[in-house]
């Protein structure tokens, strides 16, 4: 069939553009084991680094003896803080405006902290040498509880900033205090609470967990002393930011640093920050003149790299007696561990926690967050959520449930009464955000209908009757959640990391034969960018997605961007891709008009070509235009067909969703069985429904893990109790329920293609939904709040404390 004979629809289908369930192009290599991860990189003469780590959570380091280790054949060097100090690299800046020890400088502040770095000719010798480094410690009192950290006589953890009254985010009121962040109107909120018909109050704890990506963190640093260039391969979610930071801290000019993120096996926020391993590898490579590889093992990843959550959220919610919410108050005590290494935009030390009014029209609200140091690992990253959004969603979705109990109201109805209405968008929230678009009532009704909500409640009532009559030992819980996210950070006017504005970019080159390469400032870690960004472009420029290579992760070739986390790739880099595509199209239009010998305005874009208006038989395909751009001298038009766009988003995007979970709870064993999970997501324009479904499945499974078992647990002297996958819960297919996915589509009005991002929604909405289901099972017996994770013993304990064991 000739191109001309194809119908418009056939031509559109052939592009595999927006809305197509295109298979992931990445999977060809991944399913054959041909991915190229950091640990696959092998360079000539490469050395291996390994860390000596602190067994104690808080101790003075009295001495470090590296003699025996250095003497081991095959050991090249052992670095300690004393070696890094002359370079000014024994401490490094964190993304949150704090600083962090690279190697223990007289003191250790958490178990697993880096104390010395061994460099050896092979990985095994490095591990043996680690055992030979002798470190003398003097234990100090340990604080693992952020409330105790703030007691007047608490031991000072950070001697380096003792008595410093000003921190990176304003005044400090205690030596273990990092910042206080306040949003909203305190006085007005307190007045509303004082005069309200009903106030529900609760402490909602979102426990400490860890993103725990399948691939741990690591890097290969290679300093070429001949040309003065440093190449740094690593598991970086933000390669350009790493290059700039590396230049700033090492003093190596930025053009002499090339950062490459190869294939990354999951990040979930864990690979945003800068870790001591990177600094030590770079220094080791500079010192030895050889490439140095450092890759963590699982225990190191869990115990020393960025954790997530650990928010104690005290809430008060006020309402009229018929359930109209009038005010929300929240005070959060945030456990940041030993150093403030959150990866948040600079002006947001508690991330976007101020999205905690959720999907509801709450006229008055106040939020304050106290960041606190403890003897735990640093971090506080966005584990598959935009900055602190999952904490905010958990908080509000628990508070709604608590309020429903207090009002004696159905929780679905309470939500319905309070949703922001479709006609209120763009909606200005009491805590300062402008929600771009939404239709919460429509999504909610669709969800309630899909699960037969009334039917579920009737079944639950019957089950309760049977339980009380001794016919069953299983209770049934129905978990509800309507979440609103805030993603796509973000507008340069208020979002930056270390002073770098959070725009993103795309550069497109169309080849003479009509295929293309697009390079972006983001980096996929499993999201499928090579698949979806090609689809955005296919629809914009009429070149089939299969003919477009998408490349990311090499700072020497990709345009500058802030990387992939916080569901920002589609909202920001996806927008840049569309905008760059539009520049290509504009130039293509001029070329087409020239070739067709008509005025620019007399041609119009039609799927994969420009046609003369009113004469569709006269056209030039994008393929023809591409070739012409390389071989024709067109007056007033430069040769070639390339474009670049740097996109500064005007606003965040606000994806939302309605989730329902049904659980059976065995009160005698604490075993829970998630027998139904319905997830409706509205992520605006849907680029690739198959990828969306995959993202939702993955995110829900992480949410299941967090809600039902996953935690970073510490004992009272700061030992990590969950340092391996035996104890750190990773669900297998057996624990993973079936998911029913669904959607509505409310495009973002300000995004070029209306897309909002979906990667993190299921984690944000899933956690409260699983948790609410467990809570709901016990609601008839008086439970209002119990802490996650809802593993067997904790669920059993709830039943026990409620007297259900007779």
């Amino acid at each position, binding site marked *: 069939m000739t191109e001309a004979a194809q119908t418009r629809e056939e031509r559109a289908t052939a592009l595999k553009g927006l809305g197509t369930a295109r298979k992931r192009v990445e999977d060809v290599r991944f399913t054959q084991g041909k991915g190229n991860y950091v640990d696959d990189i092998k360079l000539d003469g490469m050395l291996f680094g390994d860390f000596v780590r602190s067994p104690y959570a808080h101790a003075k380091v009295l001495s470090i003896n590296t003699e025996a280790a250095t003497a081991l054949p095959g050991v090249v060097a052992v670095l300690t803080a004393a070696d890094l100090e002359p370079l000014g690299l024994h401490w490094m800046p964190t993304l949150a405006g704090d600083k962090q020890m690279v190697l223990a400088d007289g003191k250790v502040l958490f178990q697993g902290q880096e104390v010395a770095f061994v460099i050896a000719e092979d990985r095994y010798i490095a591990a043996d040498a680690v055992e030979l480094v002798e470190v003398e410690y003097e234990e100090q009192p340990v604080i693992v509880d952020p409330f105790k950290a703030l007691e007047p006589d608490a031991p000072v953890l950070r001697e380096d900033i003792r008595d410093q009254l000003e921190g990176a985010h304003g005044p400090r009121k205690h030596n273990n205090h990092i910042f206080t962040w306040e949003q909203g109107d305190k006085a007005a909120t307190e007045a509303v609470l004082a005069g309200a018909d009903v106030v529900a109050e609760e402490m909602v704890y979102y426990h400490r967990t860890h993103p725990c990506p399948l691939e741990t963190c690591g890097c290969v640093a290679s300093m070429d002393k001949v040309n003065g260039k440093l190449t740094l391969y690593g598991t970086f979610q933000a390669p350009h930011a790493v290059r700039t930071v590396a230049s700033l801290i090492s003093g190596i000019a930025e053009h002499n640093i090339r950062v490459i993120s190869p294939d990354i096996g999951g990040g979930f926020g864990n690979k945003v920050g800068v870790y001591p391993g990177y600094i030590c590898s770079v220094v080791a490579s500079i010192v030895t003149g050889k490439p140095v590889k450092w890759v963590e093992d699982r225990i190191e990843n869990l115990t020393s790299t960025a954790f997530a959550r650990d928010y104690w959220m005290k809430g008060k919610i006020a309402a009229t007696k018929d359930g109209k919410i009038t005010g929300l108050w929240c005070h959060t005590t945030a456990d940041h561990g030993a150093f403030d290494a959150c990866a948040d935009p600079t002006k947001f030390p508690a991330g976007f926690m101020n999205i905690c009014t959720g999907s509801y029209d709450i006229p008055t609200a106040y939020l304050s967050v106290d960041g606190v140091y403890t003897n735990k690992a640093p971090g506080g990253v966005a584990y598959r959520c935009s900055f602190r959004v999952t904490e905010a969603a958990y908080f509000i979705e628990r508070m709604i449930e608590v309020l429903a109990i207090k009002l004696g109201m159905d929780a679905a109805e309470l939500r319905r009464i309070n949703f922001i209405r479709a006609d209120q968008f763009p909606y200005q929230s009491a805590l300062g955000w402008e929600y771009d678009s939404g239709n919460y009532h429509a999504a909610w009704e669709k969800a309630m209908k899909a699960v037969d909500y009334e039917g579920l409640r009737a079944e639950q009532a019957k089950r309760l009757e049977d339980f009380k009559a001794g016919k069953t030992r299983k209770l049934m819980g129905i978990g509800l959640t309507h979440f609103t996210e805030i993603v796509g950070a973000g507008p340069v006017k208020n979002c930056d990391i270390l002073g770098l504005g959070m725009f993103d970019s795309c550069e497109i080159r169309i080849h003479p034969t009509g295929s293309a390469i697009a390079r972006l400032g983001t980096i996929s870690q499993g999201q499928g960018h090579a698949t979806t960004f090609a689809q955005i472009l296919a629809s914009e420029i009429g070149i089939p997605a299969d003919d477009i290579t998408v490349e990311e992760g090499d700072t020497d070739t990709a345009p500058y961007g802030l990387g992939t986390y916080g569901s920002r790739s589609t909202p920001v880099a996806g927008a840049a891709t569309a905008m760059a595509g539009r520049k290509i199209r504009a130039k293509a239009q001029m070329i087409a008009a020239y070739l067709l010998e008509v005025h620019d305005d007399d041609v119009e874009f039609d799927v994969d070509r420009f046609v003369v208006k009113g004469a569709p038989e006269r056209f030039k395909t994008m393929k023809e235009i591409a070739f012409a751009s390389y071989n024709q001298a067109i007056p007033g038009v430069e040769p070639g067909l390339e474009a670049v766009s740097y996109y500064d988003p005007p606003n965040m995007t606000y994806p939302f969703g309605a989730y329902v979970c049904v659980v059976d709870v065995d009160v005698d064993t*604490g075993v829970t069985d998630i027998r139904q999970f319905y997830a409706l997501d509205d992520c605006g324009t849907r680029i690739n429904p198959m990828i969306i479904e995959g993202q939702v499945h993955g995110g829900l499974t992480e949410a299941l893990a967090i809600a039902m078992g996953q935690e970073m647990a510490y004992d009272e002297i700061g030992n990590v109790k969950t340092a391996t996958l035996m104890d750190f819960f990773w669900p297998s297919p057996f624990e993973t329920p079936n998911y029913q996915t669904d959607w509505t589509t409310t495009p973002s009005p300000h995004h070029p293609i209306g897309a909002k991002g979906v990667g993190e929604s299921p984690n944000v909405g899933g956690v409260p939904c699983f948790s609410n289901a467990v809570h709901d099972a016990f609601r008839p017996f008086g439970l209002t709040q119990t802490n996650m994770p809802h593993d*067997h013993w904790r669920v*059993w304990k709830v039943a026990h404390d409620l007297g259900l064991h007779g």
Partner: protein
Amino acid sequence: MIPGVFEYHRPSTITEAAGLLTRFGDDARVLAGGHSLIPMMKLRVANPEHLIDLQDVGELKGVSITSDEISIGAMVTQHELIQNDALASAVPIIREAALQIADPQVRYVGTIGGNVANGDPGNDMPGLMQCLDASYEVAGDKGTRRIAAREFYEGAFFTALADDEILTRIVIAKPQAGSGYAYEKQKRKIGDYATAAAAVIVGPGIGSIAMTNLGDTPIWSAGANDALAKGDVDGAVNAVMAAISPASDNRGPAEFKKHLAGVILRRAIERAQGRAN
């Protein structure tokens, strides 16, 4: 997660393996499937200087079933136990229990010999073997002997096996016709050890119970068996409950485990009784 330095040996007979053990004594460990030993070596909790791999020792393989006795080679994998239909019809509780160990990947390589010899209170097979009143054939430089499973376990990771002995076979008398069985296990996820597990055999005049991961060794009590044999379920449960001493850990506090042990045991007994005739 990198083990220390060790020498690797690969004997092909029991005699050769026993000779190596005698020669290196304390510094040597035998390696079966490696799914308990290698993780311990990677954590450097175990640092053997000599690793004696048993995988080429043909005498340690195979399952033989006679009219009254079953003999299982120490190197038979958990997967092979599950696949063996004759074994499943002779002693069905073995398949039921093996299916609840770890995950398929672990079961492809993990062996019954390693499982019972390790002395890990979390392992499922030791309790099961006590329930079945199995005995272990062991061989050393000085010859062979048999040790009853019920007398084998002395403490966590301490057994009656001498340093220079190898466990060669596991011998089980066929359970009496008409008896019912059940292996009930609660764990946090696939791939986890038991929070509590119960092995039960019950039938006319017969009763045997063993519990896993509720003390330093498997829990087996003569009193419980007698009570169960008489049909006194409460008496049996009470006797077991008096014998367990679970430790608090990430699976939950001791208080929870005690309660759970009773629930699991009653469910196992009920299921086993339902299968008896």
